[in-house]
């Protein structure tokens, strides 16, 4: 076995996986990765199950050191500068840390959460099938709290498998899509329109429980108290002050504020990766469209292994190349910045 030492880490970094399901009826929040696609991509790169436990790294930097042997890892999610002793490491690739080497990750450049998956996955004692940290309930393994410098993981020795990169589709841009309800009838048409037509910003006080949205105050039709009912990831509740809160993975399992809309499954990770201060909009879609997108999202995660490529082959993205030609850009096929064609330096 090797060890991976958390040499330094910022706040809001913790072990997360696909979440803890089946006990929401007892008030146990599901937790789990804020961006499930990024978690799955990182895990796929090192041959793990898509929702295996990995390190969710918050917006600040972090460093990880291999001890007692080599450790193979992969990073995906919010982009950041990464290097091993000055050698750059690309996002969406696997890399092997030799014994004694340190992987340094900078601040998130856009987005919030980056996932560090470890070959063989993080090991621990699951509770309700999950190692995910839920600090309030004292759950999570191997540490039932956010990570601190000095924490370490006992991990499989690196297999020596060839390094891989994963070609992810360009993330959707545009508004965060929602399905109205379950309590949209607690708001009149003008206030529903205000919610859908306004620009919103994520407040800096947001966390894994909820993203507070800054924008116009949304008024209720009959006041802000409803009898508590169940919540889901992406429920957008409107408390008394009219500032909506999008409930995230560490939400309470029930809540007593009217919920105007629910973020569609395919866009919850996109919302999670919207950094504080960034302006965005919502857009209402039909249930049929939302479910169609949810199925495509599931399909994308299922087929991530088909998107793995050898990390040391230069492949031109012909589609992107021709798109760019049509658009009239001057193209340099070796410009990785323009092309996302990852020829590693």
């Amino acid at each position: 076995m090797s060890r991976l030492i958390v040499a330094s880490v910022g706040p809001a970094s913790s072990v997360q996986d696909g979440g803890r399901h089946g006990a929401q009826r007892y008030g146990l929040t599901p937790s789990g990765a804020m961006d499930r696609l990024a978690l799955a991509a990182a895990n796929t790169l090192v041959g793990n199950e898509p929702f295996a436990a990995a390190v969710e790294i918050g917006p600040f930097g972090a460093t990880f050191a291999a001890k007692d042997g080599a450790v193979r890892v992969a990073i995906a999610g919010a982009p950041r500068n990464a290097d091993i002793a000055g050698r750059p490491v690309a996002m969406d690739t696997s890399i092997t840390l030799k014994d004694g080497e340190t992987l340094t990750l900078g601040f998130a450049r856009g987005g919030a959460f980056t996932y560090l998956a470890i070959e063989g996955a993080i090991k621990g004692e699951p509770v309700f099938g999950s190692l995910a940290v839920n600090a309030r309930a004292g759950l999570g393994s191997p540490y039932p709290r956010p990570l601190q410098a000095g924490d370490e993981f006992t991990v499989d020795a690196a297999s020596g498998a060839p390094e891989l990169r994963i070609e992810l589709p360009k993330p959707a841009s545009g508004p965060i899509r929602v399905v109205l309800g379950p309590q949209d009838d607690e708001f009149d048409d003008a206030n529903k329109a205000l919610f859908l037509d306004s620009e919103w910003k994520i407040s800096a006080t947001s966390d894994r429980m909820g993203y507070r949205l800054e924008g116009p105050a949304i008024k209720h039709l009959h006041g802000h108290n409803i009898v508590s009912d169940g919540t889901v990831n992406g429920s957008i509740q409107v408390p008394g002050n009219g500032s909506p809160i999008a409930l995230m993975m560490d939400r309470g399992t029930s809540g007593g504020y009217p919920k105007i809309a629910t973020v569609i499954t395919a866009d919850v990770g996109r919302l999670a990766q919207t950094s504080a201060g960034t302006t965005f909009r919502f857009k209402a879609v039909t249930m049929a469209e939302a479910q169609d997108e949810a199925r495509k999202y599931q399909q994308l995660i299922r087929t991530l292994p088909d998107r793995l490529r050898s990390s040391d082959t230069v492949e031109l993205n012909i589609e992107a190349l021709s798109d760019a030609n049509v658009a009239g850009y001057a193209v340099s096929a070796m410009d990785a910045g323009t092309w996302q064609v990852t020829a590693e330096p």
Partner: protein
Amino acid sequence: MAATLPPPRLLPSGDSAVTVEFSRTIDDAANERVLALDKALAATPIGGMSETIPTYRSLLVHYDPGKIGFDALGEKLLAIACQKPPPSTKARRWRIPVAYGGEHGIDLEDVAKALNTTPDDIVARHVGGNYRVAMIGFTPGWSYLSGLDKSLHMSRRQSPRLFTPAGTISIGGIQAGIQCLAAPSGWHLLGRTPVRTYQLHRNPTFLTEPGDRVTFFAIDHKTFDEQDRAAEAGEIIAEQVIA
């Protein structure tokens, strides 16, 4: 009576969950229908559903839209929800010990003052109630109880406390509660119980279920300390009443 309730409504809760709403208010008849639907689905799950969360007035059903769509699931749920609920089976009954007042129930005196009576009288009214676990939510094991004596209905504190201790027994609005973990709360704290409604590595991890009946009885603070140690070691302190 259940017969007077309007038909249940389906409320979309995103693309992977649906709320079956029986009432907009706290209503024992609606809660019974919620629990009956929950029980029916546990006995005969609909393909594609994954998890249900009963609350006072509605059942939230999580499902996989890759396996069943909103329309098909909604139709099946409404069909079951509209059936006459089976006569409720015998509920489990728990007797829960409570150390009232003092450091364990810092609001007992204020509640008595607000209601123009004595702390002992408040305890007598709280102990005299027959409660039902209407739902569990917010934090693990937090059991919301219906059945609070009407004379104890009072609005919540103006400013919620950021910390209330594990095991807090409190009242808020028309509800009573058993809190398991330390948490923020705007309710009035009458006492503490050594009973853990949630304890990891204990069988069962969760003691109470929606639909269970609950009564309280007073213990002194010394007994609390003894039982608290026993509970910490994994003992189930609550007494189950065998009818």
